[in-house]
């Protein structure tokens, strides 16, 4: 009988700690499948962040580093520079990457580090229990924006993919979403392309993945997917923000 689908070898056969309906599991699988399909699992090293995906090092089957909050791009730089033929990725959330780790992500991109960053944006701090993130939408209610994010006092959300795409060292930047099957397939294509570009040694690649947090949004999983579509995508438009391999800048 022909095998038409099987578990990726890029993930270990262990239960994850993620909440029901959380999209981290899907994104982990897309990263793992991409590494496996490109035949680079054997020379891949991932860097886990601080946040909900802090334990990602227990789930990926390749070598892994756990980094301090926000420092994953610096850690990844150290790994890549030490062993240049490694395929190195960081997996970071919005608090980790867009608040405490802004210096590290901007400079890793500016240097054109041959690494791939998977940036999971769900507009909230998940692990600490639902506080305002740099990507929290205007008016969005969180534990630390209980009356809704007021941009006059709490500032404006950061569009990371657009910001990174302005840097010359970044060669491929795309924003994708995992709210639907067609979008998941597009996300997979983007992640795989980013790794291919890293394998060619062309420069820094970042894929921003719009993701859900049913627990801290206080929504059922299906409602959360709908919320993502109706609220996040209008503010964070999907698509390729920069592709220096074709000269495309949006």
């Amino acid at each position, binding site marked *: 009988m022909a095998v038409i689908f099987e578990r990726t070898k890029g993930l*270990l056969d262990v239960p994850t700690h993620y909440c029901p309906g959380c999209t981290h599991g899907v994104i982990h699988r897309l990263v793992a499948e991409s590494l496996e399909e490109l035949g680079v699992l054997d020379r891949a090293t991932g860097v886990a962040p601080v946040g909900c995906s802090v*334990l990602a090092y227990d789930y990926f089957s390749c*070598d892994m*580093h756990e980094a301090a909050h926000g*420092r994953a791009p610096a850690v990844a730089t150290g790994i890549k520079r030490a062993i240049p033929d490694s395929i190195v990725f960081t997996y970071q959330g919005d608090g980790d990457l867009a608040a405490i780790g802004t210096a590290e992500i901007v400079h890793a991109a500016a240097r054109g580090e041959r690494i791939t960053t998977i940036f999971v944006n769900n507009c909230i701090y998940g692990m600490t229990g639902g506080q305002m993130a740099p990507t929290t939408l205007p008016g969005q209610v969180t534990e630390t924006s209980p009356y809704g994010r007021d941009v006059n006092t709490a500032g404006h959300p950061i569009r990371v993919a657009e910001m990174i795409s302005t840097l010359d060292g970044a060669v491929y930047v795309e924003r994708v979403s995992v709210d639907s099957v067609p979008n998941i397939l597009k996300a997979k294509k983007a992640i795989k392309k980013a790794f291919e570009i890293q394998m060619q040694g062309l420069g820094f690649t970042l894929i921003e993945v719009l993701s859900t947090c049913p627990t801290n949004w206080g929504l059922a999983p299906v409602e959360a997917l709908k919320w993502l579509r109706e609220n996040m995508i209008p503010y964070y438009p999907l698509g390729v923000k920069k592709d220096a391999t074709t000269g495309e800048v949006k």
Partner: protein
Amino acid sequence: MAEKILMKGNEAIGEAAIHAGCQCFFGYPITPQTEVAAYMARKMPKIGRVFLQAESEVAAINMVYGAAGSGVRVLTSSSSPGISLKAEGISYIAGAELPCVIINIVRGGPGLGGIQPAQSDYLQATKGCGHGDYKMVVFAPASVQEMVDLVQEGFDVADMYRTPVMVMGDGMLGQMMEPVEFKERQGRQLPSKDWATTGLRGKREKHNVINSLFLKPEELEEHNRKLQAKYREIENNEVKYEMYNCEGEVDIVIAAYGITSRICKNAVKMLEKEGIKVGLIRPITLWPFPSKAFEEMCGKTKHGFISVELSEGQMIEDVALAVNGRAPIHFYGRSGGMVPTPAEIANKIKAIVGGAK
């Protein structure tokens, strides 16, 4: 014998690291250690190794964490305010049990302080530096030659025990020129780095994970106790110190390290001419601290000990712990970049021991 060459302390650090097989240097400019980075920037690319100027000390130490986890010898260098920024990363490196060498060319603090020599980071260096229950081996060279030797030794000790090692100098040692020799070293038998994240490369079934997170209290306690057992081993095997003029009975014993110990040696010679016998204990490892040397002198000193430091009194705490009430302890320190003269130290000692004997 290797040729002797005249080198600035900071540049000698870089050359010593290269001799020790350091593959990567990550740093950020700060006075008075910037020549280390400048030297590495000139040399490392020419021999196919990595020099990278990071966006901050925070990023630099995390690059060190990544490279050390990948199994290569790695160096970073900074000065006091920069070391405070690196403290977070040093804690992770200690927690994840990674080897690396960190240079601190100390300047006066607190805050931005000044840029002149000081020894005011003693407590920060020897009591851990960052958060958590850990220790860091701290070497305190007193000459450019010793700086070279200890940087090389530092890489071995780091690999031997999978621990961060700090080589702590001061602005004067970093900036002064002295003749140095890069000797052929008797290498240690070092354990293989089978824990490194090199990628599985068909050689391993199970992935390697570099990590300092232990969410279960039982596991974290077990990890902490494993670290402590390692620190006891380091305390048993790696203490280094010099005892100068300590034969027989002495009037007083000076405790001084680094550049201060050299000034103190001149004070010892000056006092000798006046019939005052002064011993000197020079800790070379600040942690582990050479407590036994102090215990040994407790019964042989008439007026106890005097800790002489370029600080307002930091090493004196370890001297007091070692002496444990068995003899009086005095202090003389200058800070903020002020450096005492031998005569100043001699006068202080005369005031304690009561003039010529």
